[in-house]
């Protein structure tokens, strides 16, 4: 069953307008007649399809458009061109640890984040203990979030987001945080969700991880889709490309 289908998807936005360049410069440019609206295309003509239960690894250098693509799939951004079908509930772990409130306690933040992810209050009441236990933050429940170390923050974010069984799981560099023990535990949890039949998109700079987990790989470079296909083939090509540099 097809869960995700992208056809010729591009995302572009206006850059260098008044908000970045300043009103004065824009006015001068307009008067001189040199003003041109510049657009930046972060993702260019990307197409791929994913079946239910597949794991797509996305590779590419910084600025390749990986995160933008994930934002489009999770519904935060809209494609400027092309069409997209995404079926099912999405759990998205984009840049863990951001969006929390340092002035609130761990408990308050947990409920707030749960609410943002679309859980119900009942569900949160029931699973709150499990979340804290999984994140190993039992002693910090009533401490301010700003007192947590960055590793603890990521652990909490991961625990909240992973307690549901989503149809689609979006992971952006998720396993590159936390200490050794938690890395292993979170990876196991992630595999559990994936084995449960979730379609997963994983951005990672660890090619080993991609080779181990992915069933398909998408290679992006400066927004362009270089290749999409079987894991081994694309990873080998990407590896060769990296070695060449």
């Amino acid at each position, binding site marked *: 069953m097809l869960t995700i289908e992208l056809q010729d998807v591009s995302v572009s*936005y*206006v850059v260098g307008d*008044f*908000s970045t360049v300043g*009103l004065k410069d824009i006015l001068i440019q307009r008067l001189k007649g040199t003003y041109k609206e510049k657009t930046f295309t972060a993702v260019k003509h990307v197409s791929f399809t994913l079946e239910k239960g597949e794991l797509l690894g996305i590779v590419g250098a910084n600025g390749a458009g990986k995160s933008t693509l994930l*934002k489009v799939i*999770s*519904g*935060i*951004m*809209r494609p400027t061109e092309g069409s997209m079908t995404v079926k099912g509930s999405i759990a*998205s772990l*984009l*840049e863990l640890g*951001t*969006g*929390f*409130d340092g*002035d*609130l306690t761990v408990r*308050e933040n947990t*409920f*707030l984040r749960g*609410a*943002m*992810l*679309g*859980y*119900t*209050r009942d569900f*949160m009441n029931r699973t709150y203990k499990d979340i804290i236990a999984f994140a190993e933050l039992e002693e910090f429940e009533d401490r301010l979030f700003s007192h947590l170390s960055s590793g603890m923050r990521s652990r909490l974010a991961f625990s909240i987001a992973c307690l549901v069984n989503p149809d689609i799981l979006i992971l952006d560099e998720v396993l590159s945080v936390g200490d050794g023990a938690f890395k292993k535990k979170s990876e196991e949890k992630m595999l559990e969700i994936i084995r449960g039949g979730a379609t997963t998109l994983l951005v990672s700079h660890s090619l080993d991880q991609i080779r181990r987990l992915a069933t398909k790989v998408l290679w992006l470079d400066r927004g362009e889709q270089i290749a999409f296909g079987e894991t081994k083939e694309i990873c080998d090509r990407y590896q060769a490309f990296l070695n060449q540099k």
Partner: protein
Amino acid sequence: MLAAIKNFWLLLKKHQFLFEELVKRDFKKKYKRTILGMLWSLLSPMFQLLIMSIVFTQFFGRDKPHYTIYLFAGNLTYSFFRDSTYGGMNSLMSNAGIITKINLPKYMFLLSKNVASLINFGLTLIIFMIFMAVDGIAFSFRFLMLLYPILWLIVFNIGAGFILSALFVLFKDIQYLYDIFTLMLMYLSAIFYYVDAYPEYAQRLFYLNPLYVYITYIRHIVIDGYIPGWGTHLLCAVYGIGTLTIGALIYKKNNYKFLYYM
């Protein structure tokens, strides 16, 4: 229109848990790490009132009845508007970390800020009632009509918050412009003076200022002892609905664009 309201209600229901948590957060953050905490909601309007009545009573309030209540009604309304719209203006930017990561309806952040301000306003309103009683204004069922301008003021605040938060995302200069604007608005809202010193036509110009309309409505009810005419009722609603409509349209149009400026 009715279908739209019903849809909106269903959306709110769907996000009810999030909404409640956001309101809690915004209200807690308002007085974070203060010793007196929520008590400031009561103390700050009282101090403002004290200062204003010391300064202005000699100039404007000598031969007028219930001048303190007159001041209070004006300041109460203006403070609510100010508090609500400043919070509203920041509501998108201060939640940028969330908005750029999780797909949520953006107006939730504005509405929760407004509810936090409304709770604050409610507390001040209680003090206002106590002052009225102390000043010898007898309770009347007419006071229930106070809900009418307050309701439209809430709508007006939300609308203004929509417009301001959108502008603030697009250009940050608006925060300084808005400082000047609110100062001007304060002087134009007849908070501490009486408009009857002006000629007839100038008095009518005051009605162009929505805040003045809401303040006047409240004063008529509380001090002058009558319910204003149909014109004032209409004006209250028009300002509220008009502002909200403009704000909502701006949000709808730019919903996916905000992200690029955050």
